[in-house]
């Protein structure tokens, strides 16, 4: 299958799916168009009959997809970054005194920056736990625990190393020690099967535009206990409008203003697409592509591979003698191969793996083909050979 963007005649090999999946499934595009063709179904407001209540339908779909008990505890946001900000700042707002929080070296800046901002304001003190063999263990987290530890924020899957983190024991430990545990599932939601009924995390964060195949501008979180987090946004909800205090019932507590109806429609269609394909089939295909790509590059001495056996379809590497930025530029402009280069918003990982200079990351989706992977590998080897000569 050749993917040709509408504004160009050249087929593109798009390998930046860990940032945003492309192309989107046809049914996602059709659902967004369908959503825009009719008046929106608006809760608590006058609305046309016979139209889809996308927020409710998507909450129901998310609850089934992630095996969560309460559809109403899924909150829609703009992105995983937005979700993490709402949760982290909302948790701090609920605490009267400063406390200790723990995060890890694997995190994205969407976790690190809110925590560091709050640390700078004196609202919390922060420990950052190292990773070993691409993973953060419960043992390492326990070493950082203090009597005043109240929050742990941790990724479910590294966006640079592609390593899946074993969050269940961390969730169980936190749940039994009065520590709120936020899981950043930006890289895993839609990519691997996730059963929230088996993971007692305080909150699970997802984004819509990556492996769930929704539009950019969609995301959300599942919150076990709404009391744990204060709302940091207030506004119109279409309910209880005489009361100037913001409603505290779910999901209105965290959703003020008009929802992103087309975005939520895309998320609903994305989930249906994965269900139709089969989550295991999607995961296995993507892993197979990553394995093929690694096999193609692994014997080239000019290529330094940082992810020899990733759990997620993410492969990070550098080409000897070339900045990642230059390599990405050549691949994009000379070969129409779209990768992501630089620090991938995860600066602490790069300090450990490449001295902080950044790397090239390729990431696959179910729409990539073996032919694309082989073509990309040939192009990368050519660039490596040319740079080394």
């Amino acid at each position: 299958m050749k993917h040709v963007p509408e504004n160009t005649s050249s087929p593109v090999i798009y390998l930046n799916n860990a940032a945003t999946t492309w192309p989107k499934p046809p049914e996602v595009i059709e659902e967004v168009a369908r959503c825009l063709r009719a008046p929106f179904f608006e809760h608590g407001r006058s609305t046309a009959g016979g139209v889809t209540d996308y927020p409710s339908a998507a909450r129901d779909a998310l609850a089934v997809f992630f095996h969560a008990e309460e559809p109403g505890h899924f909150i829609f946001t703009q992105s995983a970054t937005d979700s993490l900000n709402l949760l982290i700042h909302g948790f701090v707002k609920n605490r009267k005194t400063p406390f200790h929080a723990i995060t890890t070296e694997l995190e994205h800046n969407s976790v690190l920056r809110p925590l560091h901002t709050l640390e700078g304001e004196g609202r919390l003190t922060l420990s950052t736990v190292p990773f070993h063999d691409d993973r953060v263990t419960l043992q390492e987290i326990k070493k950082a625990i203090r009597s005043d530890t109240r929050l742990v924020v941790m990724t479910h899957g590294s966006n640079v190393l592609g390593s899946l983190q074993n969050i269940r024991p961390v969730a169980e430990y936190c749940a039994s020690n009065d520590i709120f545990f936020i899981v950043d599932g930006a890289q895993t939601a839609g990519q691997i099967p996730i059963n929230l009924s088996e993971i007692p995390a305080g909150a699970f964060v997802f984004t819509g535009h990556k492996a769930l195949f929704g539009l950019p501008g969609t995301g959300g979180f599942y919150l076990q206990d709404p009391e744990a987090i204060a709302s940091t946004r207030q506004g119109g909800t279409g309910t209880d409008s005489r009361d100037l205090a913001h409603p505290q019932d779910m999901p209105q507590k965290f959703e003020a203003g008009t929802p992103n109806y087309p975005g939520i429609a895309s998320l609903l269609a994305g989930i249906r697409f994965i269900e139709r394909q089969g989550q295991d089939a999607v995961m296995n295909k993507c892993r197979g592509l990553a394995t093929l790509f690694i096999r193609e590059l692994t014997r080239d001495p000019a290529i330094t591979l940082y992810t020899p056996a990733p759990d997620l379809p993410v492969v990070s590497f550098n080409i000897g003698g070339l900045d990642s930025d230059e390599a990405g530029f050549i691949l994009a402009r000379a070969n129409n191969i779209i990768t992501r280069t630089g620090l991938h918003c995860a600066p602490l990982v790069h300090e450990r793996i490449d001295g902080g200079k950044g790397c090239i990351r390729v990431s696959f989706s179910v729409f990539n083909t073996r032919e694309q992977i082989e073509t990309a590998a040939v192009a990368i080897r050519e660039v490596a050979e040319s740079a080394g000569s």
Partner: protein
Amino acid sequence: MRWRRVRVLKSVQTKVCVDGSLMKEFVLDEPLSEGFLKFLEQFGTVRHLEQLKKPYFSFEKEHFVSIKGFVGDCNVEVRYKKEFQDLVADYFHLLLYYEREGGPGITKLKGVEESIRDKMKIRLGPSDGNSR
């Protein structure tokens, strides 16, 4: 013999990079040539990967600009270093302007460079600004 100089038709992309430098992508009215690379060699470090399907080049000039592109391509990416963006804003245009003058163009542009460097030195103070 004096040739018509290459001109910038338009700027199609501008962004501020992580290190604070300003990146602009220009579209030129004719493709970049091997001759332009030879000219660039007079002013900084040129890297040329000729064996690639599209021959890639980069140009690096400390404190001034870096350039990335392909020989035979009309698009070129120019990055203006953070510290002296105002002083080097015209530098890429000057490279295009003086290229077609050959030897005299090199001399003239070296002169322009010296005056830019003098301003850089003033800004950096007496102990810095010696690197070329």
